[in-house]
Every structure is written in C-alpha cells, then in structure tokens.
C-alpha cells in the first residue's frame, strides 16, 4: 500500500468512484471463496464450509467497526494503532490522510480485506471444527492477528516505516492467513478419516467457478490498493491479469510432467496462487517481471501442495501453500525486481538497491512467525474453555446436518412437514451421542 507523499486534502471523485467499486469487488471474493472451498470438501460438509466464509463477513465486520480499524489505522505507532477511531469515531467524509478518498470508503475497503483473511483460515479446519467455536476464534483473530499485521504493513507500523513494500496485503492477508492456517490445523487436529480414506472434492465445478469469481474480485483487491486511479493502481490491475495466467501455464506443465494430465482443480489452484503472488508486488514490478513471477512463483507453491498431503498435518484446503507460500514468494520477489521506473518509489536488488531485499526478507520472517505463534496460542486458549471440534459421530454425520440442520442437496424424500395441522409438533433432535 502506498501513501503518496503529496498529502492530498481534497476528495477526488474519480478515485472515490473506483474505490467504491473496488470495495464491492473485494466483498464478493468472500462468498466466492465459500464456493471454492465448498467444492473442495465432501458433500455432507458443503454448507458448513460455505457458512464459515459467510460467518467471517458477519464477525469480522463487527470487530472491524468496534476496534479492528482503529488498531490497524489510527496513528503511526510501531506495534499497534490507537483507539481514537473505536466504533468508527471520527471516520467520515474527510479524506483519509495520504489519499483522495473519504475515510469511510477507506475503512470499508480495508474491512473487506479483514473479512476475507478470516474466511481464508477456515480452509485449514473445515469438516471438523465446531461452528460456534469458529465464530469466537474469528472474532479474536481478526483483532489480535489481522489488525496487528495490517498496522505493521499498511497502517504506518514498523514494517511500513522500515521500508517494507507490500502493495495489497502479502503480509497481513496472505502470509497472515497461510501461517495461521498451519497453526490452526495443528491445534484443531486432523479429520478422523484423514490418511485412512480418500477424502475427495465433491464438486470441481464449484471450485473452478469460485476461483474465477475470486480472480474477478481480485482486480478490486489489487487494483484498489493504490486508493486511486493512479499509475500504481493501473499497474497492479494489469499485473493481476498477467501473473495468474502465467501461473496457470506453469501449473499445466507441472501437472503434465507429474500425472500426464492437466487437472481442473489444479487449474483453479493455479489461479489463486497467481493472484496471491502478485498481491504484494502488483504496484511495484513491471508487467514483464509479473510474467516471470507467475511462471516461477508457482513452483514453490506446487511443491508445498504435493508435499503437504504426505504429512500427518491435515491443513485441509492448502491455505499454507496457496496463500502463505505464494505471499512469501511475492514479498521476496519485490526485493529483487521492484523498479522505480515503474513504481516511482523504490528499486529492488536487480536495479541496484540491495537494502530493499533486506526489508522484504525481514517482513517474510516476522509476519509468518507472528501469525503462526499468535494463532497457535489463541486456539490453545480457546480450547481450554470450549471444545474446538465436533464429536466423531457428528463428524461422520456431517457438519451440515449437525450444526445447521440443513443439507446442501436435500431431496425432500422422507421429509414430513412439521406443523400444527400435521400433528407433528415436537421436533425430535438428531441423536449425535
């Protein structure tokens, strides 16, 4: 995120129009992620998986309104922001410092980032975590981890003032979610059938459609992270088209080499990986380097995707590979190939500025460590006061029926209407014990 040196004092209508649109685009990414994730799980957990993403909108918007925004964006304290904007106090139509858009729009745009990051972590714990426990976790995580990392990278915290470049969220969103997901998978534990049975995606079309909608929304995510219609935004927008396309090419090639077939779910994953790779780097590297990032950056992510299922770690939907690893790669890539001629801010090592690589490497070490450690601790503490996961019986029955009392593919066969006229008045709860 760039805070232009020229402090603008007036709201610009063009910038504001684009940022209103971009905010709506980013919000759409969360249901799109729900669709993507829902296709990757077994049919009996479709709704619960989707609902974790919907729940992220509910929970993270409230915490963002209450304290998240203030802690992330009030003031330039090194570690954490202040409390002057609690409950959006004084957040109104005046332009946000350093931008030409009303602070309300700025706040809403940033809120959608917090929301999708919370939703991303759910991928590590689907098909077994208790829904109620997830809601509490989401609320606490959005403040204790997301707001802190967002302050470091975007809000004038120590990483930003140190010179670390992160255009659209390699630190808080991608590494934040990816390494938190790893911690969550370790604390919550594997699904009971993991490693014993084949647990397959139940609808690859959802996965492709979700990936497509995510990509569409990502134009708002990256293209909006310059808070304007300026050059950096245009560059980030265009790179968001280029990098995922190149990741797809690499993924096709790797699939061909490894299995002699190009897979659909692989392609959907490649789109996400490409979008994540360009997220931190979007406004800082040339379109040519964006292509290279897409082609080469997909390699470490593919390696993690192949390696992870061979471990006992049931990081179910590979948030670590697709977000943590890709975000890590993108953040480091800036250190090598940022180009002041394109971004107007800083060069990377390849253009004679070695110190930029140091700043990027620092972020790539500290952000994962904080996200992993804090999430691990948080879930351990929550685990002391309430169960993190459902019983084995509930897991076998499926999360949809257990926690939502609905099925994704209800046929209506054998369903008796419960109404006063039908004489069936007392609902008999499903016995899960």
């Amino acid at each position, binding site marked *: 995120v760039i805070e232009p040196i020229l402090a603008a004092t007036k709201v610009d209508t063009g910038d504001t129009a684009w940022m209103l649109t971009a905010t709506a685009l980013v919000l759409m990414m969360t249901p799109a992620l729900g669709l993507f994730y829902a296709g990757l799980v077994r049919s009996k957990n479709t709704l619960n998986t989707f609902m974790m993403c919907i729940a992220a909108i509910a929970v993270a918007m409230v915490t963002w309104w209450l304290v998240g925004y203030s802690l992330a964006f009030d003031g330039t304290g090194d570690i954490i922001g202040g409390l002057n904007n609690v409950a959006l106090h004084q957040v109104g139509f005046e332009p946000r410092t350093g931008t030409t858009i009303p602070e309300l729009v700025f706040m809403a745009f940033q809120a959608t980032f917090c929301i999708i990051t919370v939703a991303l972590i759910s991928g590590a714990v689907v098909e077994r975590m208790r829904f109620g426990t997830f809601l509490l976790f989401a609320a606490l995580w959005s403040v204790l981890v997301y707001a802190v990392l967002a302050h470091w990278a975007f809000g004038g915290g120590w990483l930003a003032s140190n010179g670390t470049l992160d255009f659209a969220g390699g630190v808080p969103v991608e590494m934040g979610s990816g390494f938190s997901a790893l911690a969550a998978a370790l604390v919550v534990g594997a699904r009971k*059938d993991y490693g014993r*049975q*084949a647990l397959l995606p139940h609808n690859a079309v959802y996965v492709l459609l979700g990936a497509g909608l995510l990509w569409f929304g990502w134009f708002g995510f990256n293209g909006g992270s310059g808070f304007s219609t300026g050059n950096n935004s245009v560059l980030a927008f265009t790179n968001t088209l280029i990098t995922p396309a190149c990741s797809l090419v690499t993924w096709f090639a790797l699939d061909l080499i490894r299995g002699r077939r190009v897979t659909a779910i692989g392609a959907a994953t490649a789109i996400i990986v490409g979008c994540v790779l360009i997220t931190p780097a979007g406004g800082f590297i040339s379109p040519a380097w964006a292509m290279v990032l897409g082609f080469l950056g997909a390699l470490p992510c593919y390696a993690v995707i192949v390696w992870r299922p061979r471990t006992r770690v049931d990081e179910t939907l590979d948030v670590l590979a697709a977000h943590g690893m890709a975000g890590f790669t993108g953040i480091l890539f800036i250190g090598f190939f940022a180009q002041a001629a394109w971004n107007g801010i800083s060069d990377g090592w390849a253009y004679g500025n070695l110190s930029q690589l140091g700043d990027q490497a620092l972020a790539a070490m500290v952000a994962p460590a904080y996200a992993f450690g804090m999430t691990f601790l948080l879930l351990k503490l929550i685990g002391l006061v309430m169960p993190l996961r459902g019983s084995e*019986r509930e897991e*076998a*029955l499926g999360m949809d*029926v257990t926690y939502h*009392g*609905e*099925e994704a593919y*209800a046929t*209506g*066969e*054998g*369903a*008796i*209407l*419960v*109404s006063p006229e039908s004489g*069936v008045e007392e*609902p*008999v*709860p*499903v*016995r899960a014990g």
Partner: protein
Amino acid sequence: VKLVIGIVRPEKANDVLEALYRAEVRGLSMSRVQGHGGELDRVETYRGTTVQVGVSEKVRFEIAVSDSFVQPTIDALCEGARTGEVGDGKIFVVPLERAVRIRTAETDVEAVTPVDT
C-alpha cells in the same frame, strides 16, 4: 449359493470394502439407498419450513457368494460397518436360485468364484 445383502452407513462403506477385500470377497455391487431402521428422526429447517426427516442415507451391498463364504462375508460387513450406535444397519442372507456369469455362461458356484487374472 447365497445372496448377502448388507445395508450400512455411507461413512462406513469404505471400511466395509476394506474388510471385504481382506476376507477375499471380490465380487459385489453397491448402491445408495434411503431407509429407516429405528434411529431417531432428524429435524431440518429451511427458512420457515421445518421438516422431520425419517429416512437416512445408507449404502446397500449385494454380494453373491458360495456357502463357505457366507460367514466370512457377514463377519467382514459387521467388522467394517459397526460403530455401536443405533443406525449401523442390517445384513440379510437369502438363498439364490441361480447365478450366471454372462461372459462364460458358467452357473452357480463357478459363476460367483472370482477368476484369477
């Protein structure tokens, strides 16, 4: 020759397949069925509509075996499908009048004996 019909929980179907494989029972069919066997109904709500669902998803195995394989097949079904909760399913064994292997026209015991490949 007998037909062994096993109706089991869908989430235990893979365990049953594994147990049958270990018991060297090779030929089988399976299908998704819905049924009711004394377990409690579950309640589902879709907006304002609340329903009580009296049937649950099950998987039905049909396995034709020679008499000496009946007990191993039953044991495998029980081993794979049992959780101890209501709703684990049933096994029915019925006499089979004839069995024919379509490819060779072999009948009865020969028809249900796996071919070495």
